[in-house]
Each structure stands twice: as structure tokens, then as C-alpha cells.
């Protein structure tokens, strides 16, 4: 297998120096592409501009969480990603020379998708570009944003190979990453915490028989004092991540001979490997104070940034797109008032805080910043072999799951007794119903009433899952139970035996037609 050859996408001219577009997505990364696809599936015209003409350089985001895979499935791109990627559910944590414990992120059966699929970001982007093209999204490569005027209608100045172009947009969706040009042009603060430790990422091409698991070491013999991560990607590429410490010299550490000698120590003197990509990085945990600024929305790394531990960057961005797509489509079709869009910030703001909190805690555990902190960490690790409680303290990354939109203005609080799982705001759980998976039948184009032998409701498509004992169990359902599911497959409301009026009220609330 040769080195990855990135595609070169064809530049198309807008054909005029001044054009109007309803929705402009800035940035053709995974988040912008997912959002463009979602909007196209909902019948909304969308233009997507990107400053270059290819996919991401280097593997970057590699771990796609179950919830992202479910969203990709709704968008019609899960199949190429799962087929090309590496499916995994389990991992191991080592301390010095011994195994501390193993874990399984998806101990339940009966899910269409695994806990994770590992696939290089460039492969994911390629699949998304193909889908966006097929759905008629206007993807404009080599269109670099240079100006943004928000005094009236949002007006974008864009640099292209044919010169400067002005795009008047109704809505601007900034998916342009950690160095967001939209954010910079608007002069918005991006505040948070900077971590000083440097890390080395090396993607290595090698034939290896290691199991398809996430392996994480604290203070291993081959890299004393640091942490190490080994993870498999597609095409016999392996991700290796080594903590280098605060004083590491990034220029020295990037030198191939230096990287190779570190990897030799880890992989053994006889292992044949080839470097595919090397990066020395530090990271930040920070966010914009608000994700909506009038007609401009921020998604993914443009809105919030986390440490890599927990795979919460790319995955939370995909959840951002999932959250905004249906809302913007309803507003553009006149089916919901504009303030429905405020719920994007109300729901994804707390999600970002949760991701930042988890990723900050993981970072503090992995790179202790004081002697006391290091003592507690080593104590937790040394107890974890014999004591279950200590395993729960060991934090090598709390891996991304779907955020629950607690206290969402769109949710109808429970009036009936239910288990905590799948409370309003949760992403719906999958299960087999007859010969089919449940999730693809929920949400998407419209709200869905998930019934368990309960009455149908006028004007809302419905699915009856009473026949599936797994679904009944996961939803805590009895005969008569019903869940109102949003287009993004999150739970809006649930009842033991709803009246038509209750369902209608919950639907009105979930579309901001009442406050």
C-alpha cells in the first residue's frame, strides 16, 4: 500500500463578481461538509467555500464515535466510513510495565454501530465531499474568505483564482476550524486554558499484529516519565502519541531521526515501519462565549477547542452540525420562528462545556501539574490493579458520547415516572425492531413519534417498537408509552400514555412555536 494520494478538487468560478447565496458554509472540513449534506437532505440550497482544493493534511481526527457514526448514517455516508475504517470497542491501560485494566466502551449488544471506528480525517472528508457533491451542494474550492461585513446583510469577500468575489448571504455557518477566519474577522475572544506539555503524533505505516484496541501507557519503560498511545487506523497506519513534556524543543522533536529513535524504543529494534505523518503540538481548551452572533453561527473547532484525549473535537463538531441543520431548515422553510435558532447555543454551549471539562480533567491526569497531583495519579494507578474503585479514577481520556441536552428549552420535562436513561434531551438509543434497526426510522426529515402500542398522532410519522424487547428495555417502555423524537434523533418528550394535546404541545415547544 503506497502513501496516501490526496484528491485535487476542481475549482469552479462563481461566474460573477457579486452573487447572492442563502446559506454559506465556511470551511469544507468534516463539520462543514456534514452540515452542508444535512441541509441538502432537507432541501436547502447551500454553498460551501474552502481556502484550498483538497482534504486535510495528515490523519488528524481519527476516532469517530458511535454517535457520529449514527449521524453519518442519517447523512448517508456511514457505509464507506465503516467499511474503510477500523472498528473497535475495547482498550487497555498500562502503568510502567504492567497492564492495569482493560475496558469495553460498548458492553451492550444490539447496536448497529460500534463504540468507535478509526479512520483518518482525510478519508472521512473524501467520503463527505462525494456525498455533498452527489446531493448538489455547491462546493467552492480555492475560495478564501478575506472579509466579512455584518453591518447589513452578511457580505463575504472571497479571494479566488479569478480575483475577488463578493457573496451576499442570509446565513453564515463558520466551520473553519481552530484558526477560524470568520472568528478572527469578527474580532471575537476565544478564551480558555493553554496546556504547556508538548506531544508528538507520529503516524506510522507498519504491518503489526497488535489487537484493534486503544492502548494507553502511563510512564512506560520505553518512554519513561511520559504517556504513550497506540491506535490503529486504516491502510496499516498506526497512530502513536507520545507526551514530550514542557521543555521539549519542537524543532528538534520533529526531526525524523529523533522520531524514529523514540519509535524504535517503543516498537522494538526489529519492527519495520515508515513515518507517514509527524506533528509536534500543544493544545488548548477554550470556547467562544456565544455560538450564535445574529446571522453567523460557529460550529466545531471554530466555536470550541478541546485536548485530543477523549476524541471530543471532531465528534462534538459533528454533533454541532446535527443540532443546527434541522433547525435552520425549519426556519428557512417558514415552519418555525427564527428564535428556534437560539436553541443551538442553548444546547451546544453546555455540550462544549462538558467536553472541555472532561478533556481538561483527562489532561490534568495525564500531565500532572504539581507534585501532589502526580502523587495522586500514581497512587490511583498503583491501586487500580487490585481495587475497582481506583480504576474509575484513572483517566486516559473520557471518550466522546452523545451530549444530553439537559434543561433544553425545546424539551418537555417528564410528567410521568421514567428511568434516567433517555431522558428528554438524550440521543435516541438504537435497537433491532423486527428485521430493521430503529435509529434510521427515527427523525431525519421530520419529528417521529416512537410508539410502544400507543395511539398514533395526527400529522407526525410514527414507528411502533412494542414488539422489540430490547427497545422496550432501553426506553423503559410499557404498553402505551410514547417518545417524541426530534429530526436530530434526540428525545423531545416522553409519556406513559400521552393525549394528542400533550404531543401537539411538545411538538410546538420543540419547534419554538411556544416559549
Amino acid at each position, binding site marked *: 500500500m503506497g502513501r496516501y494520494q490526496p484528491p485535487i478538487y476542481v475549482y469552479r468560478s462563481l461566474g460573477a463578481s457579486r452573487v447572492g447565496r442563502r446559506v454559506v458554509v465556511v470551511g469544507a472540513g468534516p463539520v462543514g461538509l456534514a452540515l452542508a449534506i444535512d441541509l441538502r437532505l432537507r432541501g436547502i440550497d447551500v454553498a460551501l467555500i474552502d481556502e484550498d482544493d483538497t482534504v486535510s493534511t495528515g490523519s488528524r481526527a481519527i476516532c469517530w464515535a458511535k454517535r457520529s457514526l449514527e449521524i453519518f448514517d442519517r447523512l448517508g455516508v456511514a457505509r464507506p466510513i465503516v467499511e474503510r475504517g477500523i472498528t473497535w470497542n475495547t482498550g487497555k491501560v498500562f502503568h510502567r510495565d504492567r497492564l492495569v485494566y482493560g475496558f469495553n466502551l460498548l458492553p451492550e449488544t444490539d447496536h448497529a454501530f460500534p463504540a468507535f471506528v478509526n479512520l483518518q480525517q482525510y478519508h472521512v472528508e473524501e467520503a463527505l465531499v462525494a456525498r455533498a457533491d452527489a446531493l448538489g451542494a455547491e462546493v467552492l474550492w480555492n475560495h478564501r474568505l478575506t472579509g466579512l461585513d455584518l453591518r447589513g446583510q452578511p457580505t463575504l469577500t472571497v479571494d479566488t483564482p479569478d480575483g475577488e468575489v463578493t457573496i451576499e448571504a442570509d446565513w453564515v455557518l463558520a466551520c473553519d476550524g481552530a484558526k477560524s477566519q470568520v472568528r478572527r474577522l469578527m474580532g471575537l475572544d476565544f478564551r480558555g486554558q493553554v496546556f504547556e506539555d508538548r506531544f508528538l503524533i507520529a503516524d506510522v505505516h507498519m504491518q503489526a499484529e497488535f489487537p484493534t484496541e486503544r492502548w494507553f501507557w502511563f510512564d512506560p519503560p520505553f518512554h519513561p516519565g511520559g504517556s504513550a498511545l497506540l491506535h490503529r487506523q486504516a491502510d496499516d497506519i498506526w497512530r502513536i502519541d507520545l507526551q514530550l513534556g514542557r521543555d521539549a524543543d519542537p524543532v528538534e522533536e520533529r526531526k525524523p531521526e529523533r522520531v524514529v529513535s523514540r519509535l524504535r524504543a517503543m516498537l522494538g529494534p526489529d519492527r519495520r515501519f515508515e513515518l507517514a505523518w509527524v506533528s509536534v503540538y500543544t493544545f488548548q481548551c477554550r470556547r467562544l462565549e456565544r455560538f450564535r452572533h445574529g446571522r453567523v453561527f460557529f460550529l466545531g473547532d471554530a466555536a470550541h477547542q478541546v485536548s485530543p484525549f477523549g476524541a471530543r473535537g471532531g465528534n462534538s463538531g459533528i454533533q454541532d452540525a446535527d443540532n443546527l441543520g434541522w433547525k435552520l431548515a425549519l426556519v428557512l422553510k417558514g415552519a418555525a420562528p427564527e428564535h428556534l435558532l437560539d436553541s443551538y447555543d442553548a444546547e451546544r454551549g453546555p455540550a462544549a462545556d462538558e467536553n472541555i471539562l*472532561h478533556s481538561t*480533567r483527562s489532561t*490534568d*491526569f495525564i500531565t*500532572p501539574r*504539581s*507534585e*501532589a*497531583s502526580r502523587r*495522586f495519579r500514581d497512587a*490511583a494507578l*498503583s*491501586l487500580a490493579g*487490585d*481495587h*475497582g*474503585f481506583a480504576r*474509575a*479514577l484513572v*483517566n486516559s481520556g*473520557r471518550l466522546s458520547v452523545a451530549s444530553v441536552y439537559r434543561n433544553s428549552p425545546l424539551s418537555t420535562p417528564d410528567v410521568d415516572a421514567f428511568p434516567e436513561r433517555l431522558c428528554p434531551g438524550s440521543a435516541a438509543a438504537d435497537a433491532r425492531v423486527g428485521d430493521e434497526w430503529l435509529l434510521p426510522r427515527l427523525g431525519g426529515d421530520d419529528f417521529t413519534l416512537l410508539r410502544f402500542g400507543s395511539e398514533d398522532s395526527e400529522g407526525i410519522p410514527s414507528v411502533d417498537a412494542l414488539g422489540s424487547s430490547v427497545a422496550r428495555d432501553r426506553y423503559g417502555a410499557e404498553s402505551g408509552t410514547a417518545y417524541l423524537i426530534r429530526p436530530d434523533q434526540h428525545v423531545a418528550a416522553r409519556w406513559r400514555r400521552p393525549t394528542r394535546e400533550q404531543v401537539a404541545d411538545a411538538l410546538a415547544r420543540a419547534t419554538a412555536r411556544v416559549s
Partner: protein
Amino acid sequence: MSKGIERPDEVYEALIELHRDLDDASSRRIDARLILLLAAEIGNADTLKRLIAAAREEADAGRGASSPTHGR
């Protein structure tokens, strides 16, 4: 036996926060205070002795000696 720790990440964070900006001697003093407070909350002498022995295990294993009061 052990009940485990509720909301472990939150508790762990509070423990680390407890030591913020303290020098090493102060840190150790605070830890000793905390241990005594926790011991009082547990109360039961046999339980405490069992936990004390479990904590010691690693140090003794390191020296190649076995703990004389191996409670498990």
C-alpha cells in the same frame, strides 16, 4: 467491601484542587488531615486497619517483603 467513589472524576478534581498552590510540606500536612477526617468518617477500626494494610502493600512489595497484616 469498597463502595467505590461516586462521581469519581469530580471527586478526583476536588482532591487535586485541594493542593493547588501549596508547597510540598503543606501538601503532605493537608493529606494527613484529610486521612484523619476520612478515617473518622469510616469509624470501624477493623476496616481502617484493612485499608491501612492495603495502602502499605505496594511499598512492601517494592522491598520484597510481604505485609504481616494482609487483611484480604
